[in-house]
């Protein structure tokens, strides 16, 4: 995802773009820096200043990409994001790499597991969490070609899978839930945010081997959420599961639940969520280890789905 983001950035860069980093992106941003030296700015290890500078550049008409590891250019500078970028409705794209548990062994400081909740609560923000390299590329391309105001773009790191068929890639639209796999007879739907899309697809394939159909939807745009599609999905399926590498508080499952508030026609009992508990991990582990530890690996998810489906059958 990280590389796809950079590829799109280099490809669709305009003279108005500014890439500002808080001294991160070793190896990743070198190409951009070489190609567009005047549009690259490393402000040093100073995320409050990074975010203020991004606002200042955007006030002068630049489209600014603020780049760092998740938590650093988000939580460290949350007030600058709220007051300087969001209140002034500026064209700043806050790109955070390592969303979720991508930097597993690096420890709790590097686990971005509340970022979506916190940023989503801020008015004017668009929250994007692409599910694979294709989404990362197309979303970044759209962000450069059009203005979306303040954006939080949560990406994983290098090496995520490509989950799209080639002819479907052009269907990726900011603001629209993308039906990645739609089984006509399915009674189960998966709604996935960010890099969990790979797990959602894997779960779909495993269920398929057991003759259980399921559909997979990518919710790359967490805010504004595609309410109509969510209602449609809730009307269509008997079981809905959300997948996210984020705290249970304030992420995708909260967003989905919020859209159903006051909707008496909706049965929220058929909705289950795979998310992280609201706690700091006390074990060390890589992304896969921690996913498994917290019950959001493909195996653990499958076990829980089977239990829920069997109980209700």
């Amino acid at each position, binding site marked *: 995802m990280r590389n796809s983001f950079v590829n799109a950035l280099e490809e669709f860069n305009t003279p108005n773009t500014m890439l500002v980093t808080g001294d991160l992106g070793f190896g990743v941003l070198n190409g951009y820096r070489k190609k567009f030296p005047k549009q690259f700015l490393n402000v*040093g290890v*100073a995320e409050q200043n990074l975010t*203020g500078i991004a606002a200042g550049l*955007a*006030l002068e008409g630049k489209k600014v990409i603020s780049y760092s590891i998740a938590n650093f250019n988000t939580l460290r500078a949350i007030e600058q994001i709220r007051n300087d970028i969001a209140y*002034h409705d500026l064209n700043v794209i806050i790109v955070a790499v390592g969303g979720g548990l991508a930097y597993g062994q690096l420890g709790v400081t590097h686990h971005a597991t509340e970022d979506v909740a916190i940023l989503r609560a801020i008015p004017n923000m668009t929250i994007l969490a692409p599910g694979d390299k294709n989404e990362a590329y197309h979303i970044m391309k759209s962000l450069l070609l059009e203005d979306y105001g303040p954006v939080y773009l949560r990406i994983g790191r290098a090496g995520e899978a490509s989950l799209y068929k080639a002819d479907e890639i052009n269907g990726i639209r900011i603001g629209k839930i993308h039906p990645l796999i739609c089984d006509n007879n399915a009674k189960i739907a998966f709604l996935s945010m960010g890099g969990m899309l790979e797990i959602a697809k894997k779960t779909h394939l495993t269920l398929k081997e057991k003759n259980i159909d399921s559909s997979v939807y990518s919710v790359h745009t967490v805010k504004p959420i595609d309410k109509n599609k969510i209602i449609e999905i809730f009307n269509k399926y008997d079981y809905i599961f959300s997948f996210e590498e984020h705290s249970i508080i304030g992420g995708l499952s909260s967003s989905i639940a919020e859209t159903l508030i006051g909707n008496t026609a909706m049965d929220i009992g058929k909705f289950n969520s795979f998310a992280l508990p609201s706690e700091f991990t006390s074990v060390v582990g890589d992304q896969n280890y921690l996913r498994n530890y917290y019950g959001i690996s493909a195996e653990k998810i499958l076990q829980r789905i089977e239990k829920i489906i069997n109980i209700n059958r």
Partner: protein
Amino acid sequence: MTTKDLANRIKIHAVNMTHTGKSSHVGGVLSIADILAVLYNDILNVYPENPKHPDRDRFILSKGHAGAGVYAVLAEKGFFPVEMLKQHYQNGSLLSGHVSHKGIPGVELSTGSLGHGLPIGCGMAYAAKLDKKPHNIFVLMSDGECDEGSNWEAIMFAAHHNLNNLVAIIDYNKIQSLDKVENTLKLEPFAQKWEAFGWETYSIDGHNHQELKKTFDKIQSNKKEKKPSVIIANTIKGKGVSFMENKVLWHYRSPQNEEFENAIKELKDNYA
């Protein structure tokens, strides 16, 4: 209108506004009225009839709690009707206590939380350099605000990038919210700190209009130095109203009844 006229009008507006709105921060507005008057009368290129003119100088009030002063100077300079100042702090109006850009011509930036103005000023100054634009960026800050670490990040950045189109002005009235600056978090040796960080540093009397103007002019003619500039403006909190001067109380207190009448009378008498 002379800068003296303008400064006095700003002060009278500030007392009226904080009286009507029962709002705080009159002391911190009075301490910057002279700076605002000199800037808006003699220094800044501004275009009241076209507030977003690309060639305008950018002025940021980083000590957003003194927003009444900016509203007053903008109204006096014709950005919007003076009559509108009566709406300050009123339910349903646009003029919030901390300065807001929303719907108010001439306000460059909304502030209120301290330590935001200088980093944004750095971004604006960097953009102007990149685009080879001649305008300058002025950021007016409080002394207490210099406790905020974000400023020191920006101070390093501005010097590193030779932002000689950036001017910081510190309203050094030496009183912050609860106590004197020296009893809260010492800034001294203040000028030396800025110098050590690579800024052209000027320590002046922040109420002396000639000195203010001379310093701003000197900064303009000194641009070859390739350094950002800071004016440490030694000021008096509550300047112009004797019973408010140098009193911590007038950071928060709103002038009511006799206090209000005496304040207005003193400002009018002194001026006449």
